[in-house]
């Protein structure tokens, strides 16, 4: 242990601990704009400077390892003045749009400006001006609001492994952006939105679809239907001051009705169908002998990652569409027919923890019903904004039930929102189909993982090797192992975001801590609510859900049959990494051979 003195207090920390963390241990919060423990410590923002006795200049405490006998001062008038000056310099090159900014009252720069009592701007100098990139369907990037903290660089490199962002140019003109500081559309971005959740300001944010949805709701010509993703019911509560992960399913349904949606359906029903279809596909692969592993395909960012970075695995992706798209196809065919409504007059909105779904709904193959299956998607953040605007408080609303027929899901559909959930839900069905005996214990604890976990499941005569990769970075490591022949799996679930959808790029942004792992565990606490709802469900396996059984009997035919295939299956394609890349990876390999 290392002993040092911070602000006249003794503290002992492990070797290698930065002074900033040592100070936190004794309750001193040194401010920072770039530091995110275990993810990002580039010493870029210089707000965390402290004075060390015997050293000539202030030092950034986020990268200053504690040393034996070190005497540190974090709040001398000189340190505070220097910090204030650093903040003033940041603000001198920052647009003053707080009132109209999406991150108003939830911005780290704004918070520090308040904390350090900045009342005027003594520094008046040049300002950088870059165009806003709002070309991509999912993410908006406004470089003028970028404070060059590089958190997006770190999360995209280390966790997502897409390497979209880097520092471009140098000195005052320096800006964080994709190659050439160009549009995300020209980069291999997979639209997961993790960069948004770590951005301290509003330099990165989602494409806002709330206005379109309000407009549709006001249009008397349209029958507006909404579906809610599994994780939403346990992630909006925190925005209303309730404990993280509080399940508020019934109140959420009530709120959606009050917003004016004609039908409030549950995306988990589509998740149940997804389970049935994926399990059917898996059983066929077991019969045919592959291709293995079968990768899940409900995360559009993961699908895009595979298509761009690992095209050799495209055939391994499950053909089954994501629940969002299954739902859209179902509403505009089955429901439209049943309700006697022209599908062209139905406007389908999905509420998702995701910004990638905005991209997914625009994919050309997502027109199983003949028109675009999903019309608009709003993320959890956008949904909460709509509730605020409409004056709807989740805490004060009664519990209401989803509408039928697409409102009763099994517990399997609900746990889709957590990492390992899709695999677990599918295994509940595969186990019984392959083993021909009912599964007694339902929770496959082995696969509720934090990063990358594997398990062996004995289902009838089969010994199934399954794995869950958390984050596309973990998926990359897993695929490299498979390519090198070091690992073999039958079924692998991949979600791009930490903790699965509960940690999605469209979820509430949590800026209370500068600790990546703490942020991730905050997100995974949301999953607790989903598992609680699962346990309370009458039916916990998709293939036992009477609503689903009836749906197949009345309309869809057999799982994986012609109608199910037409509506719920789609192919995947290899894509170029760069829009103007002359050769696909595949073509390059062709020439090399």
């Amino acid at each position, binding site marked *: 242990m290392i002993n040092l003195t911070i602000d006249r207090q003794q503290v002992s920390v492990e070797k290698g601990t930065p002074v900033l963390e040592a100070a936190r241990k004794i309750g001193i919060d040194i401010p920072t704009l770039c530091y995110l423990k275990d993810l990002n410590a580039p010493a870029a923002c210089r707000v965390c400077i402290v004075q060390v006795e015997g050293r000539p200049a202030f030092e950034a405490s986020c990268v200053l390892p504690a040393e034996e006998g070190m005497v540190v001062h974090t709040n001398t008038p000189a340190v505070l003045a220097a910090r204030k000056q650093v903040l003033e310099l940041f603000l001198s090159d920052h647009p003053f749009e707080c009132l109209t900014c999406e991150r108003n009252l939830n911005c780290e720069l704004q918070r520090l400006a308040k904390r350090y009592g900045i009342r005027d701007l003594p520094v008046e100098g040049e300002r950088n001006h870059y165009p806003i990139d709002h070309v991509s369907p999912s993410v908006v990037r406004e470089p003028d609001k970028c404070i060059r903290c590089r958190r997006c660089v770190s999360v995209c490199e280390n966790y997502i492994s897409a*390497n*979209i*962002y*880097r*520092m*471009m*140019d*140098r000195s005052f003109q320096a800006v964080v952006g*994709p*190659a*050439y500081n160009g549009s995300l559309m020209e*980069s*291999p971005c997979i639209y997961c939105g993790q960069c948004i959740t770590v951005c301290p300001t509003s330099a990165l944010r989602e494409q806002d679809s709330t206005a379109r949805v309000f407009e549709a709701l006001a249009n008397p010509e349209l029958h507006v239907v909404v579906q809610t993703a599994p994780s939403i019911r346990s992630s909006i509560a925190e925005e209303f001051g309730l404990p993280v992960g509080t399940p508020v399913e019934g109140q959420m349904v009530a709120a959606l009705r009050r917003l004016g949606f004609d039908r409030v359906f549950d995306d988990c029903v589509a998740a149940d169908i997804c389970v049935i279809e994926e399990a059917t596909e898996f059983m066929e692969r077991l019969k045919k002998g592959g291709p293995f592993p079968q990768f899940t395909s409900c995360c559009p960012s993961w699908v895009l990652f595979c298509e761009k970075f690992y095209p050799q695995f495209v055939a391994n992706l499950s053909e089954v569409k994501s629940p969002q798209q299954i739902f859209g196809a179902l509403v505009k065919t089955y429901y439209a027919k049943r309700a006697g409504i022209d599908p062209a007059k139905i406007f389908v909105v999905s509420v998702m923890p995701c910004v990638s779904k905005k991209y997914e709904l625009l994919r050309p193959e997502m027109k199983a019903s003949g028109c675009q299956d999903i019309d608009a998607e709003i993320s959890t953040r956008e949904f909460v904004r709509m509730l605020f605007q409409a004056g709807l408080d989740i805490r004060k609303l009664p519990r209401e039930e989803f509408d039928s027929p697409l409102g009763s899901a099994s517990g399997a559909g609900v746990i889709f929102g957590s990492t390992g959930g899709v695999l677990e839900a599918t295994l509940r069905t595969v186990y019984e189909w392959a083993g021909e005996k009912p599964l007694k214990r339902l929770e496959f604890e082995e696969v509720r993982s934090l990063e990358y976990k594997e398990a062996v499941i004995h289902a009838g005569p089969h010994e199934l090797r399954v794995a869950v990769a958390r984050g596309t970075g973990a998926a990359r490591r897993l695929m490299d192992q498979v390519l090198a022949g070091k690992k073999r799996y039958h079924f692998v679930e991949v979600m791009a975001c930490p903790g699965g959808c509960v940690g999605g790029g469209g979820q509430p942004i949590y800026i209370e801590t500068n600790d990546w792992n703490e942020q991730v565990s905050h997100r995974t606490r949301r999953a607790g609510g989903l598992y609680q709802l699962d346990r309370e469900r009458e039916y916990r396996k998709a293939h036992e859900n009477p609503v689903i059984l009836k749906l197949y009997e009345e309309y869809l035919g057999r799982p994986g049959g012609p109608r199910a295939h037409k509506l719920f299956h789609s192919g995947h394609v290899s894509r170029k*990494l*760069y829009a*103007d*890349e*002359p*050769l696909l*990876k595949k*073509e*390059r390999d*062709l*020439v090399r051979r």
Partner: protein
Amino acid sequence: MKRTAIKRKEKYQELDGVLEKYKGRKGVLIKALSEAQEMYGFLSREVLIHIACELDVPLSEVTSVVSFYSLFKTEPSGRCHIEICSGTACYVKGMQDLLETLEEEINIKPGEVTGDGRFGLSTVNCVGACSAAPVVKIGDELIGDVDSKRLKQLLGKYGHD
């Protein structure tokens, strides 16, 4: 598909020869970029994408490096490229006059190329020859103690292709 792939392969045969020796090695990007620039005179988007894909380095990383070092050029320059040193010593000893001379004589500012494609101009932060300030680099040649008169002579000397 294969035909275009082969055509492409022919186009970058020389570059691929260079990249081949760097593949799978770390810390080679700057070397590869310098050699490519020597080959083509500048680094086009197409060349950078080719390098990124071949060396398996993200394009963002490649353009980050290219935009950081003033050594790398992403636009074609004139047949004769002039660099005026703007380091402290050269600045004090009158590099601004040299820029003005060039603007008067051949109507060119840093970052531009003359209409006839003959001259290109850029400034460089310091070439490390401060004792000879102000310093001008023309092509590969470093020339010290340059004043306006000398610069005009040099334009005449290098002006013929």
